[in-house]
């Protein structure tokens, strides 16, 4: 089947069990709304177009609390508006998926041109200390897979998960085989763990070995309080030091103690690479072509393609640093992931950037030229 990235995200969401979508029209993410407005009512799901992106994420969180897997999709300007309720979903630990199809910014910016300039916004856009899960894709098949993974991770860790792709991948059409084989690890579905104890024993925000408390849906007998205020283990607002600290620590620990489950990357020709390109999204496609061509010229170069953007995959960078003396980080922004690479590198290798912010893609020859320049 021939699908564009946005359509593959829809297929992934439906496969993952998404049955509620609230959104607001915005280029270049609108196809996700359009297709879901047709598909969701066919499967007893609900589609609603809200008055803005703030309302969209509010409705998504409400639907998730009522027990329905939910998603919204937007681009940079809408993602800015969602930061308020994104923080709510984090502190109240409500699973949901937010798709951000990046376009050039700041502000209204470049509505129909690609960009990767929301990488840091996806990490730090909402106020306060918080962990976040952000996944990226460079193929249509990956759009399908990471959307399913985003739902699985958000359900498992009771936290919002962000699908961060660029306009190129969103609108690119590729052949894709949609696997519905339940033994296929890539498309296995995970549902939130519900409480099994009697309601009077249920402590909604109690610490557990995994750091993730079981989640009761509204209307199922476990009446509890959900709030955006810092709360105690029962969900009630607290200003006690001995409750605030452990709560914020648990929010971080439930993600940081599960890095191996959350983080994925692809290594291409990195075993003996003296130079490695670190890329993600559509730039990883150009980078792969550049690596193949450079190998043809006898240059020992590899590609580290990040699929998990946040939490940043330190271990993957450390792995390529075992052989590489040079890292190149091409990005369609002024240098966002390259800061993370430099932070992990700590002077071991030389880190070079390649930044492009004119609304056009970074081509294989541009990456190849950069390799020649710095080799």
């Amino acid at each position, binding site marked *: 089947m021939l699908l564009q990235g946005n359509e593959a995200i829809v297929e992934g969401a439906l496969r993952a069990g998404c049955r509620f979508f609230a959104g607001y029209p915005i280029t270049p993410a609108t196809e996700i709304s359009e297709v879901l407005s047709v598909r969701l009512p066919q499967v007893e799901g609900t589609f609603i177009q809200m008055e803005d992106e703030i309302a969209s994420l509010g409705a998504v969180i409400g639907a998730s609390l009522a027990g329905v897997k939910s998603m919204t999709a937007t681009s940079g300007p809408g993602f800015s508006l969602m930061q308020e*309720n994104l923080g709510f979903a984090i502190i109240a630990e409500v699973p949901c998926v937010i798709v951000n199809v990046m376009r050039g910014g700041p502000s209204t910016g470049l509505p129909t041109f690609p960009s990767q300039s929301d990488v840091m916004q996806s990490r730090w856009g909402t106020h306060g200390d918080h962990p976040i899960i952000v996944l990226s894709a460079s193929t249509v098949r990956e759009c399908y897979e990471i959307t399913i993974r985003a739902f699985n991770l958000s359900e498992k860790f009771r936290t919002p998960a962000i699908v961060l792709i660029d306009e190129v991948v969103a609108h690119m059409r590729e052949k894709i085989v949609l696997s519905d084989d339940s033994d296929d690890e890539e498309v296995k579905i995970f549902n939130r763990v519900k409480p099994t104890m009697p309601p009077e024993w249920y402590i909604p925000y109690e610490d557990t070995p995994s750091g993730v408390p079981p989640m009761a849906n509204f209307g199922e007998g476990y009446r509890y309080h959900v709030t955006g205020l810092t709360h105690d283990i029962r969900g009630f607002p607290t200003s006690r030091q001995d409750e605030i600290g452990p709560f914020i620590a648990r929010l971080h620990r439930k993600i940081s103690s599960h890095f191996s489950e959350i983080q994925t990357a692809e290594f291409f020709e990195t075993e003996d690479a003296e130079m490695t390109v670190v890329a993600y999204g559509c730039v990883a496609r150009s980078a792969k072509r550049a690596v193949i061509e450079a190998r043809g010229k006898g240059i020992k170069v590899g590609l580290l393609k990040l699929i998990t953007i946040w939490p940043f995959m330190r271990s993957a960078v450390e792995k390529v640093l075992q052989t590489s003396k040079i890292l190149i980080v091409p990005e369609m922004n002024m240098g966002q992931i390259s800061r993370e690479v430099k932070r992990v590198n700590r002077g071991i290798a030389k880190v070079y950037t390649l930044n492009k912010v004119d609304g056009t893609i970074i081509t294989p020859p541009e990456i190849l030229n950069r390799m020649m320049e710095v080799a």
Partner: protein
Amino acid sequence: MPEVTKLIHKYLRHDKKFPHVWCPGCGTGIILGALIRAIDRIGYEKDEVVLISGIGCSGRLPVYVDFNTLHTTHGRALTFATGVKLAKPSLKVIVIMGDGDAVAIGGNHFIHAARRNIDVAAIIVNNSTYGMTGGQYSPTTPYGMRSTTTVYSNIEQDFKISELAVTAGAVFVGRGTVYHAKLLDDLMEKAFLKPGFSVVEVVSHCHVQYGRQNRLGSAVEMMEWQRDHAVPVEKALKMKPEELKDKILIGVLVDKELPVYQDEYEKIRERAKRATGG
């Protein structure tokens, strides 16, 4: 313990750390009492009620009562309510907001929830001020009044919340005051039972902030003002416009029928399934 107190206690969360956050003499407690009495009269199960709030003094109301409770972001309560209701239509969704919450930061959500006819009951505590932040002027602070951000006088015109709700398309709109507690019980019962978007505006007082800055007296004196300035809608029909100039109309302003969103969406599902031959 008197019967009426026993009834309230049946619905309170006893594991919550009382005392509550409201100032002595606040009207919000009377509104909570009316809400509980209306729910009890209808006979809803605690499990089927979802009580949702925004931010401010009214935002703290859900935490005290034993329902499914959700304290959302400022002004956004109706958006969360939309999601809860559409995801699980069997739930009875009640939203409580303040005036700043409902018609300043949440004004857009308010008119669109009314326009869509989402089956949610919205209770709005209108005390003409931002009480929790210390008494700044709100969209319902009347022209010429003082607040901590209009120390020289308020030069803006105020919103009439109920009239705004009527214009936006709410199928049930009622207004009361905290002085008229029994009327509140009735208005809330009607609003909760009404299919579609229903609004109960409750004129309340903030004697601690708004009242003090405008020398309006104690909580009791401000409630006496409500008593003296409230006119039932039926009576107002026989009064001249000049007699109604500084009056608040109380009672049922609108009670009409319009298609309810979730029922209409069910029809969409049928059409979508027919389109796939399913």
